[in-house]
């Protein structure tokens, strides 16, 4: 089985990277300090990687489209709006901004409230049009973005620097308690989802086939949307927005594994995601000694890959 082999290969590669990340350059005098920094960081990288891969995979099955990402729901824009507003109204020294825990809960809370409002339309039985719902998310997302930009322009340049910090995902200074909470939420979601993998396989045939084969389409879709929203909210509030990573890793997993099964695609794309994040972080941090946030690099590579996908889909 090529699938299983590739997955083992990716798993071993991930473990090697994790070990390298944690133990590289440790010695008897610095190990306490480094481990206390590196273990939370590596955990954050791994759970973000899984959350992003999983949410994108689900979102693509849900929309039956291989080049969409959950950022269409407008959640990352909402996150930026929340950060901008806090700084704009309360200033960069406000407790909400400085205290990561409060910030995390407020951001997750608001994103989930926003999602549930957005889904209300979708949840009504007769309005099961996903495209309508996506369009709505897209429009609101754009609106949030403009509002953020507007506030950022009126802001003191020093305050703006704080916003800029938040615009790109970063894995430095992650609060351990938040990390544990995020870890539990994401683990719980993954465990809860395992029993649905086969249903999602059927859904990837498209709506009509799925209904013909007896799937409760409406319920399945609802379920998926809720899982996606929680995954995106938690991972965004944890490290910030990383738009393109999901698109990149899920499509790479499809190409490598050559399968439609969510079981394999989930594991494969999660592992690729971990490899990309950890590998990228290692290169940037330890090899090149850059201070560029990794998401800048990932968005760059992701953007190029997205263009490639678009051109390929057009050509086919």
């Amino acid at each position, binding site marked *: 089985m090529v699938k299983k082999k590739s997955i083992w290969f990716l798993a071993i590669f991930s473990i090697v990277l994790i070990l390298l990340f944690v133990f590289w350059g440790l010695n008897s005098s610095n190990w306490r300090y480094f481990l206390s920094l590196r273990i939370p960081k590596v955990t954050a990288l791994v759970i973000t990687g899984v959350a992003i891969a999983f949410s994108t995979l689900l979102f693509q099955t849900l929309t039956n*489209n291989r080049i969409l990402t959950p950022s269409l729901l407008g959640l990352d824009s909402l996150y930026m709006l929340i950060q901008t507003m806090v700084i704009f109204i309360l200033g960069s020294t406000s407790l909400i901004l400085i205290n990561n825990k409060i910030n995390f809960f407020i951001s997750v809370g608001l994103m989930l409230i926003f999602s549930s409002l957005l889904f209300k339309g979708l949840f009504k039985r*007769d309005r099961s049009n996903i495209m309508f719902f996506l369009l709505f998310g897209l429009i609101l997302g754009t609106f949030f973005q403009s509002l953020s930009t507007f506030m950022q322009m009126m802001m003191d340049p020093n305050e703006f620097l704080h916003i800029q910090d938040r615009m790109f995902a970063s894995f430095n200074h992650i609060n351990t308690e938040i990390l544990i909470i995020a870890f539990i939420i994401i683990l719980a979601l993954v465990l809860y989802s395992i029993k649905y993998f086969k249903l999602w396989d*059927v859904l*990837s045939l498209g709506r*009509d086939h799925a*209904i*013909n*084969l*007896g799937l409760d*389409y409406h319920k399945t879709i609802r379920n998926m949307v809720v899982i996606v929203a929680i995954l995106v909210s938690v991972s965004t509030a944890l490290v910030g927005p990383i738009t393109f990573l999901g698109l990149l890793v899920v499509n790479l997993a499809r190409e490598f594994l050559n399968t439609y099964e969510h079981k394999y695609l989930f594991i494969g794309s999660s592992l690729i995601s971990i490899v990309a994040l950890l590998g990228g972080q290692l290169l940037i941090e330890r090899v090149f000694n850059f201070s560029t946030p990794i998401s800048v690099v990932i968005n760059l590579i992701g953007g190029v890959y997205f263009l490639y996908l678009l051109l390929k889909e057009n050509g086919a």
Partner: protein
Amino acid sequence: MIEIRNIVKQYGDKRVLDDVSTVIDKGKITSFIGPNGAGKSTLLSIVSRLIPKNSGEIIIDGKPLEKWQSNQLAKKLSILKQSNHLNIKLKIRELVSFGRFPYSNGYLTKEDEIYIDEALDYMQLRDIQNMYLDQLSGGQRQRAFIAMVLAQNTDYILLDEPLNNLDIKHSVEIMKMLRNLVDDLGKSIAIVIHDINFASCYSDHIVALKDGKIVDEGGINRIIHKDLLGQIYDMEFSIADVNNMKLCVYY
């Protein structure tokens, strides 16, 4: 028996189905004919719960459609739509295996494999069962989708233009196979079909639709008639009797 009662379907102001009532009888092949846009596909989609209706009732074996659990209905009734585009890469056998989903929930048993093999044999796809759908010709792909519906093994089978893309030989084979399913296994089949001569030679009952209304329905002798067909299609027909079958000549 599937009872179709006073079905109305509207898109905006446009009535696509206007008070349509008929039945799909047990143990028969019922053919739906009519010009493009008559509402044939819409009707089949409503009967198979793919799209909602504005008013009217569908009653399947005495129970209204809304009362059926979707996964129970999937063991009773299957539909193959007119066009089938997939966004994922699948092998023929994988596609056909999906037909067993209502029974297996994705965990195939030995019995499921037997049905899958049978369906593949029926559609003569065994030799190419490991080819990907996107490597197939239009007709081979159509046969793969029909095989999926066969594997689903339902009492009622609804097929929207199953002869799409098929050459004459395969068309005849599929119509014969449908006839066997009805005569030997007691299945009930509803098909939308454009080739009137196939409808004439293989169906038990024909429903003629035009502009969202049923113009007439009945046996072969009643429907394959030059006045009625002329009225439906707005053109001249002449009907010939060949080997006890009624064939339409049109050009």
